[in-house]
């Protein structure tokens, strides 16, 4: 350009010189030396440039512009110039074109690259596809310009400047598009030579979706950005989201996780089968990366769990039906039910999640209507609409609701697809003169279609080469393969493999169903998607149609993507989640009798049925009293079975042996290992803690063991262990009381202050009993029931049950809370004291004649009284302190009951009748011996 080397000049001389007047003039002025004129080959006029630029925008190189592989960008040829433009001016004019073209080209390269991965990364591929559509849209603008250019043909010369102005939105769009692809998929991926993506499919999908989502969130705030960035983003976003939605659809409506590329935000844990109790918790897990961060698109964060649960619930329901199906063999009705269940679930019974999503989108963007609710009432709406149309013949009305068009299209498409026999001839016939002519005849005689089918009629007759084949393969061999025909049959192709044959046959049948007469190819209109031509495909044209619609639509407003997703997808997902939740809840409450099962658990573990374990407990209590051994599992169980059989509540359990008891030996072993002294282990065996060793097992039936699982039973057992202590304390105190009555003529009357201790202990235990019944047994249960009624999914049911468990645990002081532990230790001490008191009384009763024993008993009684007073003082002080009780109002109730007649503590909170409470004791008032 500026630096013109001599050869170039000479070249010009050689090739470019002409003998025009101007040249001669120039030569004369410059003394023969030619003017440094540009190469004529590089000279161009603006018209040419415009065309080249437009071509470049479409991705084609030309004389003036080329694709620099190194720099990965379009470059203009060195030295081009236009006659009436300065070089800088030209450069300035060209640079936006170059930039835009480069962007578009790079995007194109990305698309190509992405396509090579499309097999493994559906979302990436969908993203690439929609990018491609958008790219095509952008380039179409350039194409149209070029067409116009050709057509107008000199009528008006388009200048570069004009072009720059008229294509400014294209430039912006191109840049945006490039930027978005860059950001959505890392640049390294775009640039890298390797065909490996370091990210997993899920990570990549999430990255793309999140990026688009975030961009959308930013862009939606800006009004009418240059080059419709919002529109582009929403287009890309919708496109990219479709594979995700499709996977979700099969998960939400069929309970099938078809995710071969592992893109979803959760995955199946194959080690857990559906009939295992841990199914609910561990069968489907949220995908996490190494840093334990959930891999989930932003907008699914909130409803992710619900989605997973819905699918699992579906699986559970289906599993039950399968089981029933297997067991009852009433296949048809159940088939029908399953079908029913799933179909009902879908919107209008047929629309898939993506259908709903797309139609809603159109409704939202084009018609500015929240149509999901209308969608549910579709037939009515459409009828009304039709009526309106008939009455008013109002076209506007129709136009306004373009989503309705899409919807009816879709519905027709689907219903057609479902009934392939009633083929829509029009779809087949368009542009096919042969069929158009024969249309009527064909329609009258569907049987003749078979004949027309070339694949059938062009079949070759089988060869009678049986002998030959027999010679080659041998008879036996052929038998083993169970060949249908003996000779070579070309109907089946040249096949030696059954599967291959079937596959081919299936393929052919599929083709026939898609395109009735494959020999007569329909005419393909330009710009039509393949799916639009193959009308009987289930996954029909809707997605492409709507995407196209959106691409061409004029967006009225830019909505927050959160809102868009909520309106178009969230509502539908929520409906299905609710539907499934309701379904499984119906099952739980109805067929599976959840409440009944929980009631049984309550009867057993919370001792609700006083009778079920009464005999067992009395026997065990008596054994403990006598110091008899009671650690034989078998014997315990037989006592238990006896007790259940003789109980009035035996009908609660299906079979007496559905409840079993076992002894946890771990503690015992440990202690013997530690060589603890005899007395200690003895007191452990027969003391108030004796029942800690017992573990009751109730077999919860499937699928309720998802809710009352092993962990839950463990908690139940803990609570029960505590309640049994209370029971035992009550038992021994009752017994002491009976002694007192029976000993009314004895001289022991003098032991009046024993009476007070006894009264205190019994009152405490009674109050506790009452409290437990009130709080644990009734109130907690009522909360559980109302919680269950209010819950809408299995997850919530599990949660409600967990809350119930932890609340009864807290109420029974077996929770691991620090304050609880403090309180629990005091209460346990008191219960232990009850037992001690009983033992002293027994000693006094049986052998307490000698002074020494009497004295010892007296001191023991005094100790019991002191400890009791300490404990009660502590409890009352702690529990009546509002700050402590605030979180646990039930504790206040306990205080009320213990101190009902203000014996221990006055109304104003002063301790009475008990030794002064000295703050927080440094050491616990009671150390177990």
């Amino acid at each position, binding site marked *: 350009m500026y630096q013109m080397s001599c050869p170039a000049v000479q070249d010009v001389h050689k090739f470019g010189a002409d003998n025009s007047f101007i040249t001669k003039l120039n030569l004369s002025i410059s003394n023969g030396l030619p003017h440094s004129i540009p190469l004529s080959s590089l000279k161009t006029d603006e018209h040419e440039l415009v065309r080249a630029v437009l071509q470049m925008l479409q991705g084609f190189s030309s004389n003036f512009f080329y694709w620099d592989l190194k720099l990965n960008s379009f470059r203009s040829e060195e030295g081009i110039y236009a006659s009436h433009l300065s070089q800088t001016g030209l450069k300035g004019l060209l640079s936006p074109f170059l930039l835009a073209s480069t962007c578009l080209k790079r995007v194109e390269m990305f698309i190509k690259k992405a396509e090579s991965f499309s097999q493994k990364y559906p979302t990436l591929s969908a993203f690439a596809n929609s990018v491609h559509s958008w790219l095509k849209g952008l380039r179409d603008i350039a194409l149209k310009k070029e067409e116009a250019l050709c057509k107008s043909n000199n009528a008006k010369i388009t200048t570069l400047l004009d072009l720059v102005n008229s294509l400014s939105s294209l430039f912006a769009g191109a840049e945006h598009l490039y930027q978005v692809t860059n950001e959505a998929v890392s640049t390294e991926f775009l640039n890298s030579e390797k065909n490996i993506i370091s990210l997993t499919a899920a990570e990549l999908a999430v990255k793309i979706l999140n990026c688009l989502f975030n961009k959308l969130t930013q862009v939606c705030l800006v009004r009418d950005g240059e080059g419709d960035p919002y529109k582009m983003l929403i287009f890309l976003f919708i496109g990219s989201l479709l594979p995700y939605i499709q996977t979700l659809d099969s998960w939400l409506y069929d309970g099938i996780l078809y995710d071969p590329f592992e893109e979803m935000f959760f995955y199946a844990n194959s080690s857990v089968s559906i009939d295992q109790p841990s199914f609910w918790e561990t069968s489907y897990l949220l995908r996490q990366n190494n840093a334990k961060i959930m891999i989930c698109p932003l907008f699914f964060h909130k409803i992710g769990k619900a989605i997973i649960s819905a699918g699992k619930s579906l699986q559970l329901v289906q599993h039950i039906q399968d089981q029933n199906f297997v067991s009852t063999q009433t296949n048809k009705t159940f088939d029908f039910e399953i079908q029913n269940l799933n179909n009902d679930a879908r919107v209008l019974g047929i629309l898939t999640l993506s259908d709903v999503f797309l139609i809603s989108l159109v409704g939202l963007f084009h018609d500015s209507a929240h149509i999901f609710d209308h969608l549910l009432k579709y037939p009515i709406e459409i009828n009304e609409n039709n009526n309106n149309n008939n009455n008013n013949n109002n076209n506007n009305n129709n136009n306004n609701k373009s989503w309705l068009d899409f919807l009816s299209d879709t519905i027709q498409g689907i219903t057609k697809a479902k009934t392939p026999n009633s083929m829509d001839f029009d779809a087949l016939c368009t542009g096919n003169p042969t069929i158009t002519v024969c249309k009527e005849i064909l329609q009258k005689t569907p049987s003749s279609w078979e004949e027309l089918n070339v694949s059938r009629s062009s079949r070759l007759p089988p060869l009678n080469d049986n002998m030959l084949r027999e010679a080659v393969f041998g008879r036996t061999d052929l038998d083993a393969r169970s060949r249908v025909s003996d000779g070579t049959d070309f109907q089946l192709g040249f096949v030696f493999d059954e599967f291959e044959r079937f596959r081919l046959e299936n393929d052919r049948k599929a083709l026939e169903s898609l395109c009735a007469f494959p020999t007569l190819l329909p005419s393909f209109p330009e710009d039509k998607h393949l799916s639009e031509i193959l009308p009987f495909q289930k996954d029909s044209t809707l997605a492409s149609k709507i995407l196209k619609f959106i691409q061409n639509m004029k967006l009225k407003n830019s909505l927050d993507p959160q809102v868009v997703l909520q309106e178009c997808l969230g509502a539908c997902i929520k409906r299905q989640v609710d539907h499934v939740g309701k379904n499984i809840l119906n099952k739980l409450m109805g067929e599976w009798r959840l409440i009944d099962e929980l009631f049984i658990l309550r009867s057993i573990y*919370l*001792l*609700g*049925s*006083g*009778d079920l374990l*009464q*005999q067992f407990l*009395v026997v065990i209590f008596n054994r403990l009293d006598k110091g008899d051994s009671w650690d034989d599992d078998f014997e315990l169980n037989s006592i238990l079975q006896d007790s259940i059989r*003789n109980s*009035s*509540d035996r*009908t609660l359990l299906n079979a007496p042996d559905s409840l079993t008891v076992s002894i946890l030996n771990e503690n015992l072993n440990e202690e013997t290992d530690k060589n603890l002294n005899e007395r200690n282990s003895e007191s452990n065996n027969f003391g108030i803690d004796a029942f800690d060793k017992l573990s009751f097992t109730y077999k919860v039936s499937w699928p309720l063991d998802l809710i009352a699982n092993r962990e839950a039973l463990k908690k139940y057992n803990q609570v029960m262990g505590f309640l049994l202590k209370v029971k035992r304390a*009550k*038992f021994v*105190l*009752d*017994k002491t*009381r*009976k002694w*007192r*009555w*029976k*000993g*009314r*003529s004895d001289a022991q*009357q*003098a032991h*009046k*202050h024993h*009476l*007070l201790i*006894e*009264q*205190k202990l*019994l*009152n*405490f235990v*009674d*109050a506790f*009993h*009452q409290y*437990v*019944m*009130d*709080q644990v*047994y*009734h*109130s907690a249960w*009522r909360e559980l029931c109302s919680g269950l009624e209010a819950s809408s999914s299995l997850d919530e049911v599990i949660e409600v049950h967990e809350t119930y468990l932890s609340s009864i645990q807290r109420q029974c002081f077996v929770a691991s809370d620090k304050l609880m532990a403090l309180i629990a230790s005091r209460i346990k001490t008191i219960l232990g004291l009850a037992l001690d008191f009983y033992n002293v009384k027994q000693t006094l009763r049986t052998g307490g004649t000698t002074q020494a024993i009497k004295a010892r008993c007296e001191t023991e009684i005094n100790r019991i009284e002191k400890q009791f007073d300490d404990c009660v003082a502590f409890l009352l002080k702690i529990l009546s302190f509002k700050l402590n009780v605030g979180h646990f109002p039930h504790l206040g*109730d306990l205080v*009320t*009951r*213990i*101190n*009902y*007649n203000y*014996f*221990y503590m006055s109304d104003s909170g002063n301790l009475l009748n008990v030794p002064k409470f000295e703050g927080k004791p440094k050491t616990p008032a009671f150390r177990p011996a």
Partner: protein
Amino acid sequence: MPREIITIQVGQCGNQIGMEFWKQLCLEHGIGKDGLLEDFATQGGDRKDVFFYQADDQHYIPRALLMDLEPRVINGIKTSEYRNLYNHENIYVSDHGGGAGNNWASGYHQGEQVVEEIMDMVDREADGSESLEGFVLCHSIAGGTGSGMGSYILETLNDRYSKKLVQTYSVFPNQNETSDVVVQPYNSLLTLKRLTLNADCVVVLDNTALNRIAVERLNLTNPTFAQTNSLVSTVMSASTTTLRYPGYMNNDLVGLLASLVPTPRCHFLMTGYTPLTVERQANMIRKTTVLDVMRRLLQTKNIMCSSYARTKEASQAKYISILNIIQGEVDPTQVHESLQRIRERKLVNFIEWGPASIQVALSRKSPYVQTPHRVSGLMLANHTSIRHLFAKCISSYNQLRKKQAFIDNYRKFPMFADNDLSEFDESREVIESLVSEYKACESPDYIKWGMEDSGKSSIVSELDSKLVLISAERYDDPHGLERFDFFSTESFRVMSLPCRPELGVPFPQFHDSNRPFFLSSQRTVSLSFSSRVEYPSIPSNDEISISIQLNKRRKQSTQTSSHDFLKSTQPLIHSLSLSRSYINSSISSLGFSLLLLLRF
């Protein structure tokens, strides 16, 4: 282990209420009149085996023993539609059929005569049960058979089944109407002694109150026995419902009673039931809730115990314990709320010497019996005001005894032969001590009552502790003087203080010279009084109670009183020191100073 309970119904009244009880149980358990389970009674969940057992042909037989000395009532049962329900081997009617003539002594004596026959039946039933928990005795305390024979059975049961619980449903006579049984005070007193000493729990069914409730609450002008008995059967069945429909707690008798009866003697329970309806009273149906039921149960008018006993000294009367058995469609969350409300409103006065509370047992209800009310409740309460009922018994006994009326009828029987009426006196002492124990329960110092600090005095602790409380009663003596009789508790001792208006203060004197002061038969003691007399106001009540606290002081011989205390005539609190012995010089060696606390 069904924890069986054997019911023994004695006498006319006992058999009548027993009959009603069994009718009710049959209804509730869906057992037909012939003992066969009704077709609809399939729900289960109940323990029929507590009160019934099944014969080989599966029909249910009540664990009941029917005893009477005259055949009328039992014949009635035998000819009623329930004739096939009972095991006829369990029916005892005396051969002569002459009854007990409303004479306790006769009933007791006849019981003694046939003890083997009766106990044979009891033993047979007891052996037939797997884990016998106890006996329930239904009887009245006024007549002859129920009281006399019942008393004997009580003693025998206590003797032979000393480990089993004995609960009685005892019907107390109607005090308001003149009874056809004139010796009812004697009978009651003698029976009460056995109830005090030989029963573990007595559910007091006061005919006075039952009548009142029938009149007032049920609007019956002339309640029949059948109607009052239906009240009784309601109470009886309700009080056993936790045993028959076992729930979370109170599913055995001992557990039920243990918290109700803290001390061995104070085991007399009042009952209350609400809402009460008899048939055809639809207009009386109201909305029932837990709070409503619990509140009504505390109202005097709903309590099946003489109202005069309840209203008298109501401010001092205290609940020792309460158990409410609530049946029906209960909202369990309301229980605690109701308890708190009751506490806030101070509707209950509890003892102060120990912790006490209202226990609430929520019980299932029979699915086969339809009641118009959603919630119904029974209260079993140990209330100190019941002592007024006993005091009334004593006072009517005293009146009768003073006249020596009808004593001859009793002298015919061995126990009272040779004019040995010590049984009466002993019974009276027992009841008096019971009264004073209940009275003592009202004071915060009950625990100290009856026992001295053992460190202080060995003499006092060695003395019979029951000596301490004295109750007094005012009456007009034949000379026109107002007198106060003082009763100690355990050992029968009376001193009579003539109330001289001009002196204002009773003057201690022996009432019965035949039976002078004695503390216990083995010991001779002399007493000196140091007393503090409190006159909060001019006495308007019929009754004065005096508590005397023993102080150890060794005193030599006797002194004649200077009558110091007589000088203090002001009707306000006085502290008098009285050092006068009222004792024959012959029985002197130990001296005590007694602190007299007079409270009007």
